[in-house]
C-alpha cells in the first residue's frame, strides 16, 4: 500500500480538514487513480471513523467533520474522473416526516451516505407521504429513510408505509426510520422495515439492503 493512500486514510481518521486537499493532490501526482483513492483511502478512512464512533471514541460532531473532510476531497477527485467512472451505490430518499421540521439527524445521515457513495435525494422537512412515493416512482429510488423527532408525528411514518402499499410499491421499497422518538418497537408498530439509532446504523442498513437487492 502506497504511503500517500495511507495518508488519505489517516487524514479522514484524524479529521484533517485543512490537510486533505494537499494529500489528495499528492496521490494524484503520484499517479494514483481517483477510483483507487476513493476505494482504498476515503472509504477505508470512513470505516475507521465509523468504528471509532461505535466504540465511543468519536462523537456525532466527529462524524460530521469526517463527512466534511470527504466533501473537501471529492471535487479534486471528480475533476480527474472520466464521466461514468463514479459508481453510485444507489439512490436513497431522505425526508423528515409530515408535521415535523427537525432535520439535523436526517442531514447527518445524508452526509454519511453521500460520503459513502450513495446518491441522496433529500426532500427536506415536513414532507407528505405522497411526495415521498412520487419521488420513489420518478427517480427509481427504492431505499427510503424517514426521520422523526416529535412523538406527536410518528403516525406520519405509517402514512408513508400505507401510501407505498396503496401505490403497489410496498414490496419494492425499504423504509428505514430514525430520530429521537423512534425505536425498534415503533418501527414494527408502524410497519417500517428497519430502525437505525445512529447515522452509522443507517449506513449499515442501507449497505445491507443494497447488497441483498
Amino acid at each position, binding site marked *: 500500500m502506497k504511503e500517500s493512500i495511507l495518508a488519505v486514510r489517516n487524514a479522514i481518521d484524524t479529521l484533517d480538514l485543512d490537510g486533505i486537499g494537499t494529500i489528495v493532490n499528492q496521490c494524484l501526482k503520484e499517479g494514483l487513480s481517483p477510483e483507487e483513492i476513493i476505494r482504498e483511502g476515503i472509504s477505508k478512512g470512513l470505516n475507521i471513523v465509523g468504528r471509532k464512533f461505535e466504540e*465511543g471514541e468519536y462523537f456525532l460532531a466527529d462524524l460530521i467533520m469526517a463527512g466534511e473532510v470527504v466533501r473537501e476531497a471529492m471535487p479534486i477527485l471528480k475533476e480527474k474522473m472520466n464521466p461514468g467512472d463514479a459508481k453510485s451505490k444507489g439512490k436513497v430518499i431522505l425526508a423528515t416526516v409530515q408535521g415535523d*421540521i427537525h432535520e439535523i439527524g436526517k442531514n447527518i445521515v445524508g452526509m454519511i451516505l453521500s460520503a459513502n457513495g450513495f446518491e441522496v435525494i433529500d426532500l427536506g422537512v415536513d414532507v407528505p407521504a405522497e411526495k415521498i412515493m412520487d419521488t420513489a416512482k420518478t427517480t427509481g429510488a427504492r431505499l427510503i429513510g424517514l426521520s422523526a423527532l416529535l412523538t406527536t408525528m410518528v403516525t406520519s411514518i405509517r402514512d408513508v408505509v400505507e401510501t407505498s402499499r396503496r401505490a403497489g410499491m410496498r414490496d419494492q421499497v425499504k423504509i428505514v426510520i430514525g430520530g429521537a422518538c423512534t425505536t425498534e418497537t415503533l418501527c414494527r408498530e408502524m410497519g417500517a422495515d428497519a430502525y437505525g439509532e445512529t447515522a452509522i446504523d443507517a449506513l449499515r442498513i442501507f449497505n445491507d439492503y443494497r447488497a441483498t437487492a
Partner: protein
Amino acid sequence: MNPIERVLKTMEGKPVDRVPTFCAMVEDRTFNEVLGKPLISQEKLMRNPLARFILDRWGRKLPKLVFQGEVNRALEKRIRAQVELGFDSVWAILEGSFIVIDSKTMVRFTGSIFNLQPDGYGNMTYMYRGPAFKSRDDFESWPYWPDTDEVAHSAYKFFKKIVSKYGHRTCLFGQASAYGIHESLLWAVGFEKMPIWIRREKDLVKRFIDINEELCFKTNMALLDAGVPVIIQTDDFAFKSGPLMNPKLIDELFGPSYRRIIKAVHDRGAKYVLHSCGDNTLLIDMFISWGVDGLHAYETTSNADIFKEKKLHGDKVTIIGGVGVDYLLTDRSKDEEVVDMVKKLIRELGPDGRFIISPVHSLSSIPAHKLRVMVDAAHKYGSYPISIS
C-alpha cells in the same frame, strides 16, 4: 415542611418529609386545561387575514410594543398552572429573546430562526427552522444582538412580580431569556456546521460564547436579586445515543463559562440546575465538576438510565426527572400506568434523598389530568421513610 424547604433541603442532601415534585414547564394546551381556555384561540387569531397582514407588514416593530406584554401574561399563566397543579417546584421562564419577523417567522436575538406554527391543540408554538449565521458576514452584520443590561432589567421586573405572587407557594426554578450557551451556538450556526465553525472560526465562536455567557450571567443575577432560589438552565448537550461532541471539547469550550456562572449563583446562596436533553451519561461527571446542584438530564427516550445514574452519582447531585412524556404523560396512557411508574421511581430513587420526581420535558401534548395523577401519586407514595412494596 413547605415546598421551598422540601426542595432546597433535598438538593442539599438533607432529610425531608417526602420526595418533592418538579414541573418541567407546561405548554399552552396544559395551562388552558388548568386555567380555562381563552375566548379566541391563538391559532384562530393567527388565521385572521388582518392579523397576518399586520404581522407581515409591521411584525419586526411590534414586539416591544405589543407582544412582550402578551407573552409575559402567557408565561405567568404557565407558572400559575404549574402551581395550581400542586407541584413543589416549577419551571418559571421569561421568554424575551424572540423578535417576530412575520406571521410565520421569529428570530431569537442570538441568531436562530424559528417557525411560528400551530401546536395541534389550537395554540401557536415555535419550532426551530435553522441557523441565522451561515457566514462571518451574517455574524458581523446581525442586527438583533441583545442589550444584556436591558434583558436583565426586564428579567428582574418580571421575576420580582412572580416571586411576590408565587414564591411562597412553590420553589421557583427561574430562567430568563437566556438559553444554554452550547445550544444557542448550535442553533445559530446549525449543528451540521458547528464543528467547522469551532475549527475554522475560533474568534467568532469565542465572541459568541462571551456574549451568551454575559447574557446568562446577568439574567441569572437579576433573578437572584428578585428572590428566585434556584436557577435552571436549558442546554442540550446530547442526542439520544450520546453527547453531540467530545466531552473534552465541551469542557474546553463551555466549561469556563458554566463554572463562573455557577460559582456566582452559589456565592449568592442559590442553587443551580441544568437541563440537557438526550443521553448525557458521559457528561455527568463534567456537569458535577462545573458545580451543578441538580440535573434534569435523563430523557426517557434516550439511552440514559436514571436508575443507574442514581447509584453512580446520587450522592453528589440531585437527580430530577423520571416520568416520560412520550407515552406516560400523554392521552394514550392509562392513569394506573402513571401511578405505577411514580411508585417505581420513588421506590428505587427516593431512598437516601437527592431525588425530585418530574416529567422529563415539557410538550404540547401533555394533558393536565396526567400531571395531576402524577402529583397525587407522588404525594400519596412519596413520604419518607419510603415504604412501597
